[in-house]
C-alpha cells in the first residue's frame, strides 16, 4: 500500500534557513564563519595598516643576526656574536632544564606529602596539610620571589669566604652556598671513565632484568626471591669494582675562590635554584592532593579484601592499592607537569635566562620585533603542551586497554 498522496515535494524557501532545523545549522555556521573571517580580516587589515604606517614589516631575518648580548647559563656553546636564533635555543634548553628538574622534585615532594597526609600520625598529617594549603593558596610568583630573596639576600656573598678568618666556610670543603648560587664539585672525566659510566648503565638494565626474572619466577613457580638488597648490589658493586680497577678515572673538580667568584666545579645559579624549588614546592602541593585523592579513590573494600587474603600491608599497597590509584593519579599528574612547564615562564621575574628571557625578553627588546618574538614564544609553548597532551592521550588509551 502506498499512501494516498505523496507529501508535497518540499520546495526550498529562504525562510527555511531560519525556521527549519534541518537548514538552520548551516545558517549559524555560515554566520559564525563570516564573523570569524571578518574579525580576522579586520585585525589583519589593522595590522597591515599599522605596520605600513610605521614602515615596518613582519620578517624573521633578524634571527640570523648576531645577538650581541651574553647569557650566563649556557648549556650549549654561545657567545655574544652568536645569532638570535642560537640565543633562543639556549633559552629553550634552559626552560627544559628547569622544567625537568622541577617535575622530578615536585613528584618526589608531592608523593611524599600525599602519602604522609594519610599517615596515622596526627602531627604529620596536620603538618602536611599546612604545607599543602600554604603553598596552594599563595601565588607561585610570590614563592619564586621569596626563595630568590633567600638566595640573594640571606646567603653570604663570595667575599665572606675570603681572608684569614672568613665569616662563612664551605660545607665539607666542597659545597659553597653563596648569594650567587651554589657551587658543587664537578666530575672530571679521565681516561677510562667511559667504561665506568657504561658499566653503571649496564647495571641499571641488570636490575630491571633481575626484577623481571624474580617476578616471572614468582608467577611460574611461586618461589619468592628477595629483590631489595640484590638490586642494590647489582646497581653499585660492579661499578665500584670497575672504578677502582681502572685506577679511579673519575675525579672531582672542587670549586675554589679565585678573583671575584668561585671558580671550577658546577655553578647552580640562584635564579635557577629559586625557580626550580619554588615551582617544585608549589606544584608538589598540588600533586600531594592528587596523590591523596587517588589513594582515597580506591575503595576500602579492596584493602579489606586483600587483607582477608592474608596479604601484608606493604604488599597490599604495592599490589592492590597503587596499581588502581595510579590510574587516577597519573592524568592530573601530567597536567601538573604541563602547568609547571608553563609556570617556568615566570623565570623572567628572577632573571633566569629561559626562552621567555632570551627570545621573549632581550631579543624582543633589542630588535623591537615584538610580533615575531611573541608569536615564536607562543608556538614553542604550544608545541610543548600539545606534545605532553599527546603523551597523556597515549597513556590514557594504554590503561583503557587493560580494563576488562
Amino acid at each position, binding site marked *: 500500500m502506498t499512501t494516498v498522496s505523496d507529501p508535497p515535494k518540499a520546495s526550498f524557501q529562504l525562510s527555511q534557513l531560519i525556521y527549519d532545523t534541518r537548514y538552520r545549522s548551516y545558517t549559524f555556521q555560515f554566520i559564525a564563519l563570516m564573523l570569524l573571517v571578518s574579525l580576522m580580516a579586520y585585525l589583519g587589515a589593522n595590522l597591515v595598516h599599522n605596520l605600513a604606517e610605521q614602515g615596518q614589516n613582519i620578517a624573521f631575518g633578524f634571527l640570523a643576526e648576531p645577538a650581541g648580548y651574553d647569557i650566563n647559563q649556557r648549556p650549549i656553546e654561545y657567545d655574544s656574536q652568536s645569532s638570535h636564533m642560537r640565543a633562543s635555543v639556549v633559552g629553550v634548553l634552559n626552560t627544559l632544564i628547569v622544567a625537568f628538574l622541577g617535575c622530578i622534585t615536585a613528584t618526589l615532594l608531592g608523593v611524599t606529602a600525599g602519602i604522609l597526609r594519610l599517615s596515622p600520625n596526627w602531627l604529620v598529617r596536620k603538618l602536611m596539610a599546612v604545607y599543602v594549603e600554604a603553598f596552594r593558596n599563595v601565588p607561585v610568583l610570590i614563592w619564586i620571589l621569596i626563595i630568590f630573596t633567600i638566595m640573594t639576600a640571606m646567603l653570604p656573598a663570595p667575599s665572606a669566604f675570603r681572608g684569614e678568618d672568613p665569616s662563612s666556610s664551605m660545607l665539607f670543603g666542597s659545597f659553597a652556598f653563596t648569594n*650567587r648560587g651554589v657551587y658543587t664539585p664537578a666530575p672530571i672525566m679521565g681516561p677510562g671513565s667511559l667504561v665506568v659510566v657504561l658499566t653503571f648503565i649496564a647495571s641499571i638494565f641488570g636490575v630491571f632484568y633481575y626484577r623481571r626474572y624474580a617476578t616471572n619466577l614468582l608467577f611460574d613457580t611461586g618461589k619468592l626471591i628477595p629483590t631489595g638488597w640484590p638490586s642494590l648490589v647489582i646497581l653499585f658493586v660492579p661499578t665500584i669494582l670497575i672504578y677502582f680497577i681502572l685506577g679511579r678515572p673519575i675525579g672531582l673538580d672542587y670549586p675554589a675562590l679565585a678573583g*671575584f667568584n668561585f671558580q671550577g666545579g658546577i655553578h647552580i645559579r640562584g635564579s635557577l635554584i629559586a625557580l626550580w624549588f619554588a615551582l617544585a614546592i608549589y606544584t608538589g602541593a598540588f600533586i600531594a592532593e592528587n596523590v591523596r585523592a587517588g589513594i582515597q579513590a580506591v575503595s576500602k573494600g579492596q584493602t579489606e579484601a586483600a587483607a582477608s587474603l592474608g596479604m601484608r600491608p606493604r604488599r597490599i599497597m604495592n599490589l592492590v592499592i597503587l596499581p588502581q590509584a595510579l590510574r587516577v593519579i597519573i592524568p592530573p599528574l601530567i597536567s601538573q607537569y604541563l602547568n609547571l612547564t608553563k609556570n617556568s615562564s615566570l623565570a623572567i621575574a628572577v632573571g633566569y635566562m629561559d626562552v621567555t628571557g632570551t627570545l621573549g*625578553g*632581550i631579543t624582543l627588546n633589542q630588535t623591537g620585533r615584538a610580533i615575531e618574538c611573541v608569536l615564536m614564544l607562543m608556538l614553542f609553548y604550544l608545541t610543548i603542551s600539545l606534545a605532553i597532551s599527546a603523551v597523556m592521550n597515549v597513556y590514557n588509551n594504554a590503561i583503557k586497554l587493560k580494563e576488562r
Partner: protein
Amino acid sequence: MKKTVFLGALTVAGVAAGASAAATLDDVKARGKLNCGVTTGLVGFAAPDANGVWEGFDVAVCRAVAAAVLSDANAVEFVPTTGKTRFTALASGEIDMLARNTTWTFSRDTDLKFDFIGVNYYDGQGFMVPKALGVSSAKELDGATVCIQTGTTTELNLADFFRKNNISYEPVPVETNAEGQQQYLAGACDTYTTDASGLASTRAAFENPTEHVILPEIISKEPLGPLVRHGDNEWGDIVRWTLNALISAEELGVTSANVEELASGATDSPEVNRLLGTEGNLGEMIGLDATWAKRALAAVGNYGEVFEKNIGEKTPIGLARGLNAQWTDGGILYSPPFR
C-alpha cells in the same frame, strides 16, 4: 576627559577610530593631556615623590612641552615604561613622546622608525663597585658578576667591552633599576653597570653612598634624548624646539625668575625677543601661539635650572655639568639659533 574605559571600548570601532595617528598635536589638544613615557622610577630623572607627583630631569622636558602646547605644565599623564615596553608604547600611540633616558642609536632612529629630537643629556656607561672590593679600573673586573638592565644599549656595550678586552664576566640580568639596586646591595653582583648618570642617581638613594665608587672608565657614548614617532614632523618640531628653547634660554640668560619681566616688552636682545614671542612669529611656524616658549620656561625654568634642581651638584645625585655645560662654558650643549 573621554571615558574610554567602558563605553569607549565598545563604541571604539565606530567612533573613536576617527582620530588619525598622523597629527599628534591635534590629538594632544583634543585630549587636553600629554601622554609622556618615563622610566618606572629613577631618582632625579623621573620618579614619583611621596605624593605621587612625578618629578625629575626627564619629567621637566615633558612638563615644558605640556606648558608650550596646552599652557598647563601639569596636563601630563606620565606613563611608566620599562626597557621592554617603551618602544611599543610609543609606536602604538599610547604615549606621544618618550622622555626616558633613551640612547640615540642608528637602528633606533632608522629601523625602529623613531625620531630623536635632540639630546638632553650626554652620558656614558660606567661601572659602580663597592669600595671594599678594591677595584680601581673596569679592566680589573675579570671574572666579575655584573648586574645589567636588560633591553638597554648598556647590555650590548657591556658584551662588547668585555669581548674587546678579552676578559670574562657573568651577567645577571635585571628588569628595572630598582631590582638592580637590590641585587647589587645584597652583593649578588660585584658591580652594577648603567649610564653614569643613572649610577649617580642610584647611588644617591643608598643608605651609605660613600661606600661605593663609580669607576673612571666610560665605555660608551650615550646621548640620551626624548623621541617621538617617525613621520609626524610637526609634532617632532614642537618637541625639538621646546628642548632647544630650554637650552637657548640658559645661554641667553633667561630664567624662570626673569622670564615674565623679559617677555613683558621687547628687550635689547633680538634673539630673546624672538624666543619669547615679543618679536617675529616663531610660535606660529610650529603651530603654536607666540608665547609658547615663555610658558615652557616659566613652568620649568631653563636647562641649567632644571639640571641644578634635579641632578646638579647640590642635589643628592650630585652630577657635574661636564659635557652638558653650554658650549660657551666648555661643554657641548649647543642649541641652533632661534631665527
